[in-house]
C-alpha cells in the first residue's frame, strides 16, 4: 500500500531547553488486519504499519512495534524532552517494505 499514505505530526514550533512537549502523530493507512474477508469469502492479506520510531537529533524517543490490533490511521500521542534546538524525525515502516518519514524542526525560544 503505497497510495494515499500521508503522515501528519503536531509538534510545537518552539520550546524552552529541557522542556517536555506533547507530540501527536497520525498516518493515514488502512491497517488491513488480515482477518477480514472480501465479497467472495477470501481473506484479505494483512497490510499494516508494523513499526513507528521517533528520534530527536539521532537519539531515540520512542520505538513502537505495532500489531494488526492498531486501528486504521494509527494515532500515537507521547511526550518528548527537548534538550536543544533540532529536528524530530518520525519514521513508519510498512509491511510491504515501504518506509514513510517526516521531519519537524523545533527551536529554543
Amino acid at each position, binding site marked *: 500500500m503505497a497510495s494515499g499514505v500521508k503522515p501528519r505530526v503536531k509538534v510545537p514550533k518552539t520550546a524552552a531547553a529541557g522542556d517536555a512537549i506533547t507530540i501527536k502523530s497520525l498516518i493515514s493507512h488502512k491497517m488491513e*488486519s488480515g482477518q477480514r474477508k472480501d465479497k467472495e469469502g477470501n481473506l484479505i492479506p494483512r497490510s499494516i504499519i508494523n513499526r513507528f520510531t521517533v*528520534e530527536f537529533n539521532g537519539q531515540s524517543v520512542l520505538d*513502537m512495534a505495532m500489531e494488526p*490490533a*492498531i*486501528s486504521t490511521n494509527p494515532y500515537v*500521542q507521547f511526550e518528548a*524532552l527537548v*534538550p536543544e534546538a533540532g529536528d524530530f524525525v518520525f519514521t513508519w515502516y510498512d509491511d510491504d517494505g515501504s518506509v514513510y518519514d517526516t521531519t519537524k524542526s523545533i527551536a529554543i525560544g
Partner: protein
Amino acid sequence: MEFSRRETLALGLGAAVVTVMPFSVNAAADDVIATFTGGADMADTGIELTAPEIAENGNTVPVAVSAPGASAIILIATGNPTPGVAQFNFGPLAASQSASTRIRLAGTQDIVAIAQMADGSFAKASATVKVTIGGCGG
C-alpha cells in the same frame, strides 16, 4: 425425552464448565506475556492503564498507558484473534514513559498492559472493556 438423575447432573456440570471458560485468559495471550516477561513475577503497582469501560465501536478504542521509570510497555488484548497490540520502547529522550493510541477490539474483553522497569522488574495492569460492535471484520 426423559433425563435420569445421572444425566441431569452431568448436563449441569457441563454447563458450569462452559460458563467458566470464557473468563480464563486465552493461551495465545499467555504466550505473548511469557515471551515478554520470561515468566517473571509482576507487581500490581507502578503502571496505569486507561481505557473506556464501554466502547461503542470496537474499531477505535482509545487507550493510554503510563509507567514512570519503564523501559518498555506491551499492550495485550486477551480476546482478540491475535492478542498482541503494541510494544512501546522508550528512548532516553522520552519525557514520560506514557503513550496513548487507538486500538481494535474484537469484543468485550480484558486488556492487559505490562511494563518492564529499568531495573528489570515487571508491573501489570488490566482493564475490562465492554464492546458494543466488534472491530475485527468478519
